[in-house]
């Protein structure tokens, strides 16, 4: 598996190109389609077969329209919400997909948005806006914050600490590093430990 980064200056978001079998590739969160992204795809000899959306926010999805004019790709998301003019293949929590010869595990981790998905491909975890290097995703209410904390605690913290983390914004990390230095996660782990004792 090869992972390539593309940074969108429009939404300040990360798009990930995952190279699979025989020139086929997966694109995660195409926030903006520009020549640089196209060149990244084409210069590496890839054809985008699948587009995975971590959530519906425009900074992660706005490039889809242009992408579909170039590639005949299937789009995957937790729910369509009727917000897109293109067909969405909806994913269920816990579903596994086989895309471009790669196993993609999908986990619903709501809080930042109700449809936030984390994708795990091999040793890499694509967290969208759920978890970033050094902080948790933003929320718009105490309830959402609580939901996000619980989702991360139940779904992400039990994973292998060596799991590489590729967020929707900012620098990559590993789960182990986040458990040690992410202040939001540390607070959450302490809270969980207190509840258990």
């Amino acid at each position, binding site marked *: *598996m*090869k*992972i390539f*980064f593309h*940074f969108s200056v429009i939404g*300040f978001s*990360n798009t990930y190109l995952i190279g699979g079998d025989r020139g086929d590739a997966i694109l995660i969160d195409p926030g903006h389609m520009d020549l640089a992204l196209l060149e990244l795809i084409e210069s590496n000899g890839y054809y985008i077969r699948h587009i995975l959306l971590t959530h519906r926010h425009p900074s992660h999805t706005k490039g889809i329209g242009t992408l579909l004019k170039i590639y005949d790709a299937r789009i995957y998301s937790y729910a369509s919400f009727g917000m897109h003019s293109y067909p969405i293949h909806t994913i269920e929590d816990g579903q596994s997909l086989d895309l471009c010869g790669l196993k993609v595990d999908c986990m619903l981790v709501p809080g930042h948005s109700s449809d936030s998905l984390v994708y795990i491909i*091999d*040793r*890499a975890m694509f967290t969208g806006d759920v978890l970033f*290097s*050094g*902080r948790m995703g*933003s929320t718009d209410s105490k309830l959402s914050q609580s939901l996000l904390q619980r989702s991360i605690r139940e779904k992400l913290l039990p994973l292998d600490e*060596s799991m590489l983390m590729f967020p929707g*914004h*900012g*620098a*990559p*990390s*590993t789960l182990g*590093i986040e458990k*040690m*230095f*992410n*202040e939001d996660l540390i607070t959450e782990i302490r809270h969980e430990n207190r509840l258990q004792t």
Partner: protein
Amino acid sequence: MFDFTPCSVEHCHHYVTTGQTTCLFHNPDKQAITEQVIKMLASGQTIGSFCASTLEVRNTSLRDCRLYACNLSHSLFVDVDFSSSFFQLCFLQFSTFIRCTFKGITSKYSIFSGSKFIDCDFSESDILHSNFVGIHAQNSCFDDSDLYYTDFVNAVLEGVSFKDCNLKKADFYASTRENVSFKYSNFEEASFTREQQL
């Protein structure tokens, strides 16, 4: 991406050195392999998907290194010159850097988390989308650098200079700062509290 095969020694959590069955620390030929790795790094060639965690390098010039998706975590670098090198998706977490020069480097999407930097120079560098979460830096310099979207959350910074830097979207939340200068830098565009993030 480098091989994620764990070291064959029981309870060792490091990954194997590329082409070997153990990590460098547990390799019976540690000295010879280390020399080979250093020679490769010093050759100036582009190196991708290589793992050599627990490496020890002293008094060496590794100028103009070009590393892609390499793992040099948990390593020790003393008096090493990395000037003008390029790091993309490299993993250098929990390493120790003493009197190392990173002048003029480009670092993109690389991880230096939990590392220790003593008397290091990162001046005139482009350090973008990189992870310096939890580092401990003493008497080090990032002057005249672009630190766009680079994280220093929970970092301990003592005598560190960030003069005339681009700090847009840099994150210093929960960092401990003593004798740190942000003179001439756009620190108002960096985050120091959680409210600034929203």
